[in-house]
């Protein structure tokens, strides 16, 4: 029988790849038949060219019962199946049952997704180029999941073994389709498509190293070295976490090639051996409430100065966030360290945070400045405070609800980030609507 890929031609449509669905004349009969009946129907349809003795079927599906009971159960199940399948008497009966045997009627119009996939694969052998890609893509789309996924029949070992056998056979075909498609897409320059399919394959088996290797190669073709390196990292992390293994030699070699090829043209921070002490400003953007550990608890690490503040939409006064940070630093950092900041900077910080008074003795700021001059002074003073402290102790500044930050404090963050790439500070900005790009 030749299937044309048009399901409307068929009276009985069965999909076994993924969750089982059985439709007769477009109506689902899954609720009208037992699981055993559905299993029997699938078994017969997949073996549509074979005739089975009733005793054989009885032993497959009712292995634990006596032969008499098993025969009775089979008889009843066949009857109930035929009643539902052949409700329309004008149509060709689906199952032909004789006294001692039964089989699928060769004349019945049946759609089975497995047959359609196999037909497309057969057809693909004659095709090339875009036709081949399209046909394989159709075959891929038919495979909606594992063979009879989630459909397990208790106490039917022979049937279940048959399911495992078919599942593996079809899975191998599906993997073959995916492999062929990635290669075809890659050779046609459709690297993104190829990457998409490779990622689908990794969802099925995240431990298959060759797939990461292919991903790396695809990204290299795209000229996206950073993503290629990221795939290596992804591969090594998952292998380490799941198997405590390093990536295989091929991938390591590929990784080293990428690193070495670009050695001279890359930034210093990618060079694994940097003779100078490593200091780099880091900014972490985190969605609201996604930071699990309370910041206060991180202070347990002696050598990390953690400053945290929360922005509120109701408090939008200029400098509020900066003022909170200054107060936090004064509270937590050693006085000996804070005293290293020149007094004139403390004077400027007094303008927005009164806790700073204690570091400028009696030299409180009396001068009146324009708003811009004042802002520049405060920005520079706070910049120097951060650099003075972080030169001795790594700092983490945690700002919650960043979307509510006052305008001038936000301006300062951008000012600081753009001027201090190598300071020993991590900015953790938690909240929604963060324009991450504006910090780069």
């Amino acid at each position: 029988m030749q299937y044309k890929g048009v399901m409307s031609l068929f009276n009985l449509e069965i999909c076994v790849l993924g969750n089982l669905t059985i439709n007769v004349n477009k109506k689902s009969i899954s609720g009208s038949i037992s699981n055993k009946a559905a299993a029997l129907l699938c078994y017969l349809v997949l073996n549509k060219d074979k005739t089975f003795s009733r005793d054989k079927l009885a032993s497959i599906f009712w292995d634990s019962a006596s032969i008499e009971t098993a025969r009775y159960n089979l008889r009843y199940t066949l009857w109930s199946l035929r009643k539902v399948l052949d409700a329309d008497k004008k149509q060709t009966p689906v199952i032909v049952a004789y006294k001692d045997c039964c089989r699928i009627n060769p004349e019945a119009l049946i759609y089975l997704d497995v047959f359609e996939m196999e037909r497309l694969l057969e057809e693909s052998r004659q095709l090339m180029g875009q036709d081949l890609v399209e046909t394989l893509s159709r075959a891929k789309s038919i495979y909606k999941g594992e063979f009879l996924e989630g459909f397990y029949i208790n106490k039917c070992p022979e049937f279940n073994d048959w399911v495992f056998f078919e599942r593996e056979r079809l899975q191998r075909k599906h993997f073959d389709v995916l492999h062929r498609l990635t290669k075809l897409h890659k050779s046609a320059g459709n690297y993104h498509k190829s990457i998409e399919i490779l990622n689908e394959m990794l969802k099925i088996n995240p431990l298959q190293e060759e797939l990461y290797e292919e991903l790396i190669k695809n990204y290299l073709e795209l000229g996206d070295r950073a993503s290629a390196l990221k795939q290596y990292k992804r591969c090594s992390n998952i292998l380490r976490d799941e198997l405590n293994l390093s990536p295989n030699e091929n991938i390591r070699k590929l990784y080293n090639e990428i690193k070495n090829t670009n050695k001279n043209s890359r930034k210093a921070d990618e060079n694994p051996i940097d003779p100078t002490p490593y200091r780099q400003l880091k900014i972490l953007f985190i969605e609201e409430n996604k930071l699990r550990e309370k910041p206060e608890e991180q202070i347990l690490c002696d050598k990390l100065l953690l400053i945290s503040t929360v922005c509120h939409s109701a408090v939008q006064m200029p400098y509020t966030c900066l003022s909170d940070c200054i107060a936090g630093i004064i509270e937590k950092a050693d006085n000996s360290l804070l005293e290293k900041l020149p007094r004139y900077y403390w004077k400027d910080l007094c303008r927005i945070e009164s806790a700073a008074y204690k570091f400028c003795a009696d030299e409180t700021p009396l001068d009146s400045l324009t708003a811009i001059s004042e802002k520049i002074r405060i920005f520079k003073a706070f910049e120097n405070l951060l650099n003075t402290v972080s030169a001795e102790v790594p700092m983490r500044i945690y700002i919650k609800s960043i979307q509510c930050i006052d305008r001038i404090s936000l301006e300062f963050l951008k000012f600081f980030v753009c001027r201090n790439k190598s300071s020993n500070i991590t900015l953790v900005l938690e909240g929604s609507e963060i324009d991450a790009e504006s910090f780069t």
Partner: protein
Amino acid sequence: MNVDLVLYNGTVLTIDDDNPVANWIAAKDGRVVDLGFGEDFRKYLGNTNEAMDLHGKTVLPGFYDSHVNLVQTGLNLLSLNLSEIRCMDELFSLIRFKASQLPKGELIRGIGFDELRLIEKRMPNRYELDRCAPMNPVWISRVDYHTSIVNSMALHMLNLPFNLDGIVRDGRNLPNGQLTGRANALVRSHMLDRIPESEIAKGVHKALNIAIENGITTINAVEGGFTFHDKHAEFMLENKNSFPIDIALFYQTVDIEKILSKGLTRVGGTIFVDGSFGSRTAALAEPYTDDSSKTGTLYFSQEELNSFVLEAHKNNLQIAVHAIGSRAIEQALTAYEYAQSIYPRKDCRHRIEHFELPSEEHIRRASSLGIVASVQPTYEYLWGGPGKMYETRLGKTRRKKTNPFRQYIESGLIVAGGSDSDLTPMNPLLGIYAAVNHPTPEFSINVQDAIKLFTINGAKAIFEERMKGTLEMGKLADMVILDANPLEVSPSKINEISVVATIKEGNILFAV
């Protein structure tokens, strides 16, 4: 002054070198507010919520257990324990019985299975398990977690990719239910993924109750990563404020970005640089005595370990790696030295978990790096000494070189004690006993130092010494009450001391 709790008429061993002993102690708002000798405590008796006459019992700071696989310990408490079975029939009966108690479809988890202890010396196949539990998926983990055995229902449910290495097949080329290597890793991941959070919570609370009954008030939970599941680490993160005692999480991953994105300050735990003596995978300088073809396994190249350690170090994280054999310890120390040479940091307290067979040179290098040796003295109690596992694997001479605790302390290392539960029980008193009664006498330590392993050194190992680890004014009132003074009983009787009560921040969590 009103206080919340007064303990009096006892011996308070503070582990504070300046004021080592008191007779009474008072707590308020979770902290120690006063302690002293004689009758001074009486001023609080009319102004306290609770007063306890110790009748001569001994108070110590609450214990630390510095290395616990907490979720695994909890889940194992809820699983079918197969470690005691001696034949297949016993296995089948246990599974049959468990299946009869569970609703259809619910997973049966078996743990601790070791076919080498069975008369038959073999593993079951899936058909045998099907017959015992036809209506339930069955998943058995071998004792080393490196092999899984599943029945047909579980295999069906798992949807494994069949091109996976490690699917053991029968004569008909069908999976026989045994899964090793990559297949086992994927099965563990899928199965652990299916365990609902409520079940994890139930197991963890059960394990915590055991910890509390043993006087533990702080646990270093090593979670996630190889043989475990990241979901466990996530569970600990999400629920850390809901536990009755303090849990410091060590997230076992080499993914530094992940650690930073979660705002954590430490990474690792059981990052396996090598394996174990039991499985002959601890990396030794000389071959194993009972198998001269093996010297153990290093799971990282030096370059890989350097790269991981450097990245974590540069990000100001505290790092903990698992290293048992001398080659692994060498690799770990080299990685820490490499990181320090590129990015010098003071007082980072990186850790080596287990640190069982170092050379004298290793101890010196670890000391100069300020390394924390996170050790498990109970290993020596279980496996040290003549005729036991260390001697079988390492021989008579080498087994006398394992766990030289006294040398660690003399060289200035911070030595923190743990149980490695579920491998050995969460029982600090047993750990103290084992360290004092070390089978190699020149490695044994005095009782005071052994107590420090599970108190102040535990605190130092996670930067908590300013808050906990000794009983001093202003520190948290985490305490354990013992029925005898470990400094006064015979060293051979320390393991007979009982925990009478456990107090966390002034609250009595457990009392006999």
